[in-house]
């Protein structure tokens, strides 16, 4: 009788190489150095987490009308509650908040419509870039259609921060594309004008540009023509980030193989056709991370308008810190501001990663 060969079943992997125990061992205790690092990390966590929890949640006071109400010894979040509207809208009149909210909702609806396939993207873009700013401006400043006029000096808080950021982003992007194209142009005068502009702006800190906008621009304008400080600062911010944007886009343009330019020429496309239809779509896709980084940087840099006397979110918090009723609530104010900025900036960076993945049609052969 033939003996049938039967392989014995495989043994399970040794218990110290798989499963949670092995994971813990590999990640925390694989070597003496690793053990030391683990212990050190645990100590750092021990130093930080319990006090922060105690201060921020367990001992925190959430309601009250002055610092005196905060007796629990922890964070005084009542301060944020009392000033919340100022942090959001600045000194905008309370009865007119709906105008800002309406403009925000409009923007969200318009941008959201990009997701709908049936909508014509070109019309939508024109609506957002040309029509929407006019509508928003009329809503914000009033003086028309029976809307009460609100001086720009009363604009502030997160509203002003967002306004500076969005206008800076929207206006600097096309300008940056033009500058980048100009810098790579064959025409020597065009090229040198762009190079001088980009390098000069990039060489100096934003503060000097803002000081220039608020102190020097009036000196360069003819007598009697004097435009609004907010507008001057907006121009400064836009020029500043356009120079950075131009360099990011130049990187993308450099990365496009020469064959693409040649192919576009061979098709008989004009310069603008080949740029808009062939080169820029590829170049911009390549540099999405850089573009979003510039946006995030711009959004964070809007805080500098505080130095030239405008009250954005950080400026309003600095002002509120001096309220005699709420002395000693500095940390709460900064924590709130930090939280808001963090959510927005981190959100932007994550959103850009999602866009990158979505647009990553790639040059892979499938």
């Amino acid at each position, binding site marked *: 009788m033939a003996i049938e060969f039967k392989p014995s079943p495989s043994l399970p992997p040794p218990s110290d190489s798989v499963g949670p125990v092995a994971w813990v061992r*590999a*990640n*925390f205790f*694989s070597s003496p150095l*690793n053990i030391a*690092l*683990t212990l050190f*990390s*645990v100590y*750092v*966590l021990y130093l930080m987490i319990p006090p922060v929890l105690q201060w921020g949640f367990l001992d925190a006071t959430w309601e009250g009308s002055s610092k005196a109400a905060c007796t629990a010894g922890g964070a005084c979040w009542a301060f944020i509650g009392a000033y919340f509207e100022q942090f959001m809208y600045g000194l905008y009149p309370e009865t007119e908040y709906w105008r800002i909210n309406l403009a925000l909702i409009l923007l969200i609806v318009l941008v959201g419509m990009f997701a709908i396939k049936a909508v014509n993207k070109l019309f939508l873009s024109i609506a957002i870039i040309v029509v929407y700013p006019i509508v928003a401006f009329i809503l914000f400043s009033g003086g028309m259609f029976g809307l009460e006029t609100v001086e720009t000096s009363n604009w502030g808080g997160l509203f002003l921060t967002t306004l500076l950021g969005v206008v800076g982003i929207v206006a600097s992007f096309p300008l940056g594309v033009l500058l980048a194209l100009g810098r790579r142009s*064959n*025409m*020597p*005068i*065009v090229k040198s*004008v762009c190079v001088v502009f980009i*390098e*000069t702006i*990039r*060489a*100096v*800190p*934003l*503060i*000097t540009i803002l*000081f*220039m906008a608020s*102190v*020097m621009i*009036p*000196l*360069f*304008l*003819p*007598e009697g023509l004097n435009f609004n400080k907010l507008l001057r600062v907006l121009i400064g911010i836009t020029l500043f980030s356009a120079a950075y944007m131009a360099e990011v886009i130049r990187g993308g343009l*450099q990365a496009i*193989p*020469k064959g693409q330019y040649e192919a576009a020429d061979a098709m008989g496309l004009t310069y603008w056709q080949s740029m808009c239809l062939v080169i820029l779509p590829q170049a911009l896709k390549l540099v999405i991370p850089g573009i979003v980084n510039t946006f*995030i940087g711009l959004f*964070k*840099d809007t*805080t*500098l308008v*505080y*130095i030239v006397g405008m009250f954005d979110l*950080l400026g309003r918090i*600095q002002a509120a*810190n001096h309220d005699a009723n709420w002395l000693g609530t*500095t*940390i709460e104010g*900064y924590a709130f*501001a*930090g939280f808001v*900025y*963090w959510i927005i*900036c*981190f959100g932007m*960076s994550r959103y850009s990663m999602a866009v990158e993945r979505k647009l990553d049609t790639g040059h892979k052969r499938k």
Partner: protein
Amino acid sequence: MSENTNTNTSFLNDAGNRALIFQAVLLAVVVFVGYYLFSNLQANLETRGISTGFSFLNEPAGFPVLIHLIEYTEADTYGRAFAVALINTFVISLLGIILATVIGVIMGLARLSNNWLVARLATVYIETLRNIPLLLQMFFWYFAVLAAMPHPRNSIVFGDFFINKRGIYSPNPQFQDGSGFVLAAFLLSIVGAFFIVRWAKARQKATGNWFPAYWASFGTIIGVTLLAFVVTGFPVEFDLPSKSRFNVTGGMVLVPEFVAVLIALSTYTGSFIAEIVRAGILSVNWGQTEASRSLGLPDGKTQRLIVLPQALRVIIPPLTSQYLNLAKNSSLGAAIAYPELVAVVMGTTLNQTGQAIETIGLCMLVYGSLSLSISLFMNWYNKRMSLVER
């Protein structure tokens, strides 16, 4: 049917002509705008009665500057105040760059660590600080942390160090006679170390024998300097800070403005450098590490000889821009009264003299020449490293 048949295109459709016309128009616009702005400026300065020129630099400034590393009193000129501010900007930038690099390298390596906990902690650090405006962080350190330090009476004490509302007090070394000898010995030992390294490299090339040159030269420097100290009988005395009833006197003081700017600048920039270091190391193909290991190189040498040189090629360009950013961001110190260039020149001097064009121009010139030199270097580097096609 007449002249047009000779040329394929009309004058306006010729690409070369078009380029010429376009550039001429652009040049005309630039010149005209420049002229227009300049004539407006002259008219405005005249009506407002603002004098022009840099003669104000020789007038007495009449304001104090909190931190001055060279002699400065209120009776000194605006020119000297400018020099003081310039030095303050350089000092904070240089110290910030050194600290930020150290923090950045440590955090970048920590985020790549095999230790799960360490990697997560580094991630939290990087993602938090990168996404919060620098000005807010400066305010936090200055108004929330350092302002909350105890009064001088209740200073926090670490040995001879005192920390209170007015700053960090540390022993101030006073160099006595003979310290020049120690300095000379120190410099000589560095030269000696240089020769040891050269000799070791030459010997390794000739014979293949390896000599621990770096440890040897390190030991030489420490040993010779220490010996010089002993021979001259320790020519350094420390001016120790001491606590009187209401204040701390003596010693060296780091004022809160300085500390806040330095902490904020270096931790903020450090979080960016960390990502650059991480990206640089990740860019080196894992196969390189495997190849190095299969040659039998230990981990330390794999890092130092194989991974790092290749990673540096990716790291250096963005690192240079981070240094540049840090130098420019030091201008935010103006917001918490650290007396750097913007605070002294564009703040106080501009307010007192009203000479906006000169003061802002001066600031932009300083920052401009600082960054343009780095930018030129970067462009040269970019050209050298970028891919050459056909």
